């Protein structure tokens, strides 16, 4: 047993009698290492004083203790508050410009300055959280559901189903996501639902890769064989037996993809194919203002850019922490 093993597991394994049992993933659960009661006589048998939810509760406790998760969660929470109550928090009306106060640098009245139409940048940044925080979680959720289904089917059936759909996924993923999104947006016209569907589809294919790999590791375990021997349907085996066991990687994938989705939406908006004006949006605001950078109006670009960056960083911090806890 190496040092790392004992430390990463968060628990000492004083016994390293390597019976085949200890190689199993289940025994990497803290609750299961080594010292659980053995039931020699078959009579009274003790168990740990814990109920079924312990593992998840333990995971959540570990998450809350991690500073990275806390920082990420605080930033994300701030943006969620902005998305929900943006109009109330914002000091000015984000769409109403002032012809007298355009391109104003940050000041006491306008903390983040004003843009070329005289709109308050701070207010636009605050209210701009709304659209992106509606579109991206929905898109990622759609992608996760889709990807999970595709991955389950590919990993479970393998064979021809897998190789055919696998090639299809490869083909789509060979194109840059922005190009694919372009095609759809041009065909369907830019709108929030279009964005959700496009990002959801592409991410679904990406997520299916991860899910498929996780399913492949599960499908040959004996509990699947046991299910087959009691005549379970394939749907039951996929969704009731396998799905709960690959939930960890799916959760991680969801959070990681959420970060990318924000990035993608911001990029598309910047290019004019995302969230449409006059709805305040960070990407679109950067697009409208970056031509004035040369004139020294840096605040019009910097603050929306910082907003995008902070949201992506926050979600990545959360994703990393979840990954560290769920997949040890």
């Amino acid at each position, binding site marked *: 047993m190496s040092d790392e093993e004992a430390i990463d597991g968060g628990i000492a394994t004083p016994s390293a009698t390597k019976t085949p049992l200890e190689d199993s993933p289940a025994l990497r659960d803290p609750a299961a290492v080594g010292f659980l009661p053995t*039931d*020699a006589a078959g009579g009274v048998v003790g168990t740990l004083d814990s109920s079924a939810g312990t593992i998840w509760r333990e995971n959540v406790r570990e998450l809350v203790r991690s500073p990275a998760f806390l920082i990420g969660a605080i930033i994300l929470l701030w943006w969620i508050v902005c998305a929900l109550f943006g109009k109330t928090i914002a000091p000015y009306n984000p769409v109403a410009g002032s012809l007298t106060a355009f391109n104003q640098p940050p000041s006491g009245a306008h903390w983040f300055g004003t843009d070329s139409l005289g709109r308050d940048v701070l207010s636009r940044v605050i209210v701009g959280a709304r659209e992106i925080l509606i579109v991206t979680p929905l898109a990622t959720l759609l992608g996760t559901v889709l990807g999970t289904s595709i991955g389950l089917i590919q990993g479970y059936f393998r064979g021809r189903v897998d190789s055919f759909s696998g090639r299809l996924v490869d083909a789509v993923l060979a194109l840059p996501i922005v190009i694919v999104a372009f095609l759809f947006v041009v065909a369907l016209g830019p709108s929030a639902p279009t964005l959700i569907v496009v990002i959801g589809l592409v991410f679904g294919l990406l997520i299916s890769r991860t899910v498929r790999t996780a399913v492949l590791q599960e499908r040959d375990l004996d509990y699947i*064989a046991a299910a087959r*021997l009691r005549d379970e349907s394939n749907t039951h085996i996929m969704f009731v037996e396998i799905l709960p066991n690959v939930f960890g990687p799916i959760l991680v994938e969801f959070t990681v993809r959420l970060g990318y989705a924000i990035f993608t939406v911001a990029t598309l908006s910047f290019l004019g194919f995302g969230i449409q004006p006059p709805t305040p949006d960070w990407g679109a605001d950067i697009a409208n203002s970056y031509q004035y950078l040369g004139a020294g109006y840096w605040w019009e670009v910097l603050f929306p850019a910082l907003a995008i960056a902070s949201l992506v960083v926050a979600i990545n911090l959360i994703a990393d922490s979840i990954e560290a806890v769920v997949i040890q």
Partner: protein
Amino acid sequence: MTSDAPVVQASRRPTDGPVVDVAHVDVTYTVRGADRLTVRDVSFKIGPQESFGLVGESGCGKTTMALAIDRYLARNGRVSKGSITVAGQDVGALGKDALRQLRARTISMVYQEPGRALNPSLRVGRQVAEVFEIAGLSRSEAAARAEESLRTVQINDPGRVLQAYPHQLSGGMLQRVVIAMALATEPALLILDEPTTALDATVEAEILELISALRAEFHTAVLFISHNLAVIAKMCDRVGVMYAGELVEQGPALEVFEQPRHPYTVGLLRCIPRRGQRKDHGRLDTIPGFLPAPGAVPAGCIFADRCAIVQERCKRETPPMYPVSGDRTSRCHYHQRAAELPRATPEDVRLPTPDEAAAPVISLRGVSKTFTGGKEPVHALTDIDLDLRPGETLGLVGESGSGKTTLARVLVGLSAPDEGSMLEMSGSMLAPTAPKRARDQLRAMQIIFQNPDSALNRRHSVRAIISRPLTKLAGLSGKQREAKLEELVGEVRMQQRQLGLRPSQLSGGLKQRVAIARAFAGDPKVLVCDEPTSALDVSVQAAILNLLADLQGRERVTYLFISHDLGVVRYLSDRIAVLYLGRLQEYGDAEAVFTGPHHPYTEALLSAVPSLDGTRRERIILSGEIPSPAHPPSGCVFHTRCPRRLASGICESTEPPLAEVEPGHFMRCHIPADELRQLQNVESQ
């Protein structure tokens, strides 16, 4: 080792005084900020050239002790009391360089999994030579010494082995390589941590012989760690029995095992099916209760909770190491009375004898299985004919790779047999795979897998795991299902409150009970048990074997029982089938198969099993490895390893038929049974 001048400087070996002196050692792990005392007050000495065994169930601190001696505990572990001296040096006080020297020269370690001890992406030769390079030899000298060292571990063609990558070698061969590396620097102390647990019995026998021979040659002191009492009895001069972090008894190995003086040792020995013990002779004894939680320091004796001769005093006073006689010690206040330990489980069993005249419940005729996925077809099973009678246990034995598990999977329908194979259940044909079989047929035949961690869905509760087959197979719902669930849980001796738990919250034995309850949910007629106890400790194994025997007595279910442990197979089986390279070699009543005349392969398997009484029987060491089933040998498939191969050459050319040598006893051998009987020195009965 035969080189004239020891190029590698031999480590300092004490000629007098112990090689290892462990004095009152405590080991503490810090887990989430809390200290956990895992090894308590352990003392033992290993003299020069002595072989000392540490034995005990998993989680009792054997490996922790070994790591402490090498000062290689995980970063959160430390020796919190006492001292460890190796070859005169206090291990705890060594500086960085001295510690490196200690590990490089004085102590060598061999682990359980040889495949994991070697780097998979480097050739074996490079890795063996490296040991010599570290000891200060030049590259070319080291290469030469590497080859020589492989010869000392009886590898006949070291050139081939040195050129190979680890995955190209068998487990036994790899373990030889690891042992050669461990002995390269002629260490004063060789620590063997379960060196044969991952190997087949026949290979284990070879490796144990090798270790014995090398010990004599190298004059090395050995610390041998194993959960297998028989292996320790064979290999060790002295033995220490560990329980929950304490050394509860120590002394000369044979004396300890013949007249144990601690209730734990007594109980442990009773858990093992002894030579010839069968289920109709009575149940195995077990040890009640469970291991104390790690780090718990009870007021009195650590074993008091599970001890049947416990007194008031045991709960108050921690027993010291009482001297018993000579250099034997026991950590029991009442060690004189240890042997009087009453049984924990009643001995009586009433087992209905299987009805020999009844029509077989399962018939296999000409069952073959060929795997065609790879480069060439692999014949895993060839032309198997077997009958299972109602209520009997058919034991299936053979080395790994002999096709035992394949046969189990074909039978239950998890993999389809070749065309032309016939499987019948109670007279009606079985479809090749499970989804094509009728629900009644599925219900009538279930399986218990070897590894309960893989067999139980980690995310489902015990209740869900057992209820589901009640719904699907037995067709129960509502109150009826609840009632049946309760009954099943009681039958496998679990408690209602455990229904809400997940498998990861259960111990290995409990998990296997859940798997058994699930298998019994549809009231099966046939139950395939694929190594159901090999992942479990002996005391848990005894409880599971008792449970299986009890359930068979009550439900009259037929078992196909697969195990590599011949003692376990003999205990449970009415008849035995011996597989080799996918072919049935011998088949008959358990008594007939075990008393002989034996097929030469069965004979070798039987002789490979180390016995607890320490009697040295002549061993038949099978030379070479099991041939690849992709290219089975011509004629009798066993001829390449058979010690009794006939000189006439018939074994190489013609495969013998499975002939009936006695009523109900079949064998596939050219040597007539009477001659075999004579050769094997078996008295006729």
